[in-house]
């Protein structure tokens, strides 16, 4: 029997709370230090976690380096989410919108010295070819992960951030989804999609004849329906069409709103769930949460 995927999420390490920003201001600042985050991930792994889901940022890359130094990456599944939307939105604010952002990111890709990425990027930017630009960008982000975690690191999945997935869904960009799936397949990495519109995505992927078993979908699933658009019932219904588990449930505690026992009872009763991702900010959380998840999601 395949073991469930139990991922440590990176929200607390990026100082994110989906309950309230006030909560992050009260949080112990040490959680933001890479060594401390690596300690928590290591402890979670000792208690049942088998992977790390993270937005690709300087913070999480530092955590990967810390994990690598202590040999804790061996066997650990890595699920990277790109782009780290917060960083890019903030950068766009500071450098003058999308044009300024594009120049800045282009500069970073060139500065990274990734020859393959640079070559593809030059062609892509000259022709304003969105697919070439997408591939260049993905190559750049994967190279950042490999550079931090080492070439031996197990990158199981790279997911589009929810802002990209949901915008592309809204704009019915079938071609983008299919190209991305094909490109990641060539790289031997499972393509993934983080979304707040799980039911809509499943419906569209079926219309577009995208094989749901070939991708990973990370979407909110929790007892109170938090961030489950359009509603909890439709998202639960959409799970039933999967032939094999390929859904990673996120926001299972609804940002800390739900008691762990209630949250885990709900998740463990759902069909076709491949695994879960949840953040931990204290030793006790790392230990107890993953112990409970391991037991409930056998």
């Amino acid at each position, binding site marked *: 029997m395949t073991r469930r995927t139990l991922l440590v999420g990176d929200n607390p390490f990026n100082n994110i709370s989906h*309950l309230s920003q006030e909560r992050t201001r009260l949080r112990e600042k040490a959680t933001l230090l890479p060594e401390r985050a690596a300690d928590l991930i290591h402890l979670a792994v000792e208690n049942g976690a088998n992977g790390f889901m993270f937005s690709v940022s300087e913070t999480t890359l530092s955590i990967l380096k810390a994990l690598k130094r202590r040999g804790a990456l061996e066997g650990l599944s890595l699920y990277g989410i790109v782009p780290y939307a917060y960083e890019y939105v903030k950068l*766009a604010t500071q450098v003058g919108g999308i044009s300024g952002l594009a120049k800045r990111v282009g500069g970073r890709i060139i500065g990274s010295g990734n020859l393959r990425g640079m070559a593809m990027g030059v062609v892509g930017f000259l022709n304003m070819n969105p697919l070439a630009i997408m591939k260049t960008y993905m190559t750049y982000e994967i190279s950042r992960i490999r550079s931090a975690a080492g070439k031996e690191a197990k990158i199981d999945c790279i997911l589009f951030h929810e802002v990209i997935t949901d915008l592309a869904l*809204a704009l019915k960009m079938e071609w983008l989804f299919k190209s991305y799936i094909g490109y990641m397949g060539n790289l031997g990495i499972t393509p993934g999609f983080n979304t707040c519109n799980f039911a809509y995505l499943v419906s569209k992927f079926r219309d577009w004849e995208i094989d749901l078993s070939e991708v990973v979908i990370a979407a909110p699933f929790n007892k*109170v329906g938090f*961030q489950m*658009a359009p509603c909890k019932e439709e998202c639960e219904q959409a799970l039933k069409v999967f032939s094999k588990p390929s859904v990673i449930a996120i926001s299972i505690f609804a940002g800390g709103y739900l008691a762990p026992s209630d949250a885990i009872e709900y998740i463990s009763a759902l069909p076709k769930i491949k695994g879960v991702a949840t953040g931990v900010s204290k030793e006790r959380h790392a230990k107890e949460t993953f112990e409970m998840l391991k037991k409930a999601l056998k």
Partner: protein
Amino acid sequence: MAIIGVGKMGLVHAGILNVLPNVELVALCEKSSLIRSFSKKVFKGLEIVDDLKKLEGFKLDAVYVTTPIPSHFFVASAILENRISKNLFVEKTLAQTYEESKRLADLAQTHQSVTMVGYLRRFYVTFNKARELLQKAAIGRVEFFKAYAYSSDFLGLEKKTEMSSSRGGVLRDLGCHAIDLATWFFGDLEVNSAESKSNEQAADSVSFKVGGSQTGGEFDVSWCKKDYRMPEVGFSVTGSKGSLFVNDDQVKLESQDGKSLMWYRHDLNDNVPFWLGLPEYYREDLHFVKSVADATKAEPDFCSAMKVDKIIEDVVSGES
């Protein structure tokens, strides 16, 4: 429908409009040749034009203006005067000055337009709950309020003057949300006094006091605030029978006898049919589209938004 300006907000509105029932997005207008060239390959089936005049003849029911604030007056007035569309949604703030806002409001009235300005926080479930509580006099008569609008967008940046100025300054970029909510909660307000802390060209933080027929209050606005990863707006309101605190995430109600109630987004039916970035974008666009379809008044319209621009202008002139 059409969108002028393919930046962050233009993309968000394009996405939402594309999933709203009975809405057809037909054209985008963008000045930058780089973005236009990219858009032509990404937005298949949409007309991508470089000039407002090229939108004439599309018989547009409504246009969204999501260009930088300094261009709002020129773009919005050209759309109305050239009859490109009768109905307009303009991202906040309505214009760069009160005078421009007033002229746009007058022009819209002449054309009997349905108008709306993108003060998104009116569509947050928390602020709606707070307004409902205030209207029900859950804390009695409102005596005083304190409002804040904080972000860390420019925290620690040494060379920020060019961008921060082009965004209209901290009041237009961030403070306008708190001002709009205050007028929504408490009615018309007038500026009593103001002070700011600045870098070389633009104010990083501004504090000011206001008074109105119903109540008085004070504002604190900063985009250099530590620990505000995301922009946040909040109010503490003191009433004759209790107090209320509300921000983007939660509402707390305390009565004089020490009893308290609290609501998070989770408790306030925050879901929408399609979630893009934040659920509020869907609710905002749905409200505007329905108002256009039914030819009814949308809120906040140009007249409401004009009041925000008046307060901002009074604060800025009060500082100087």
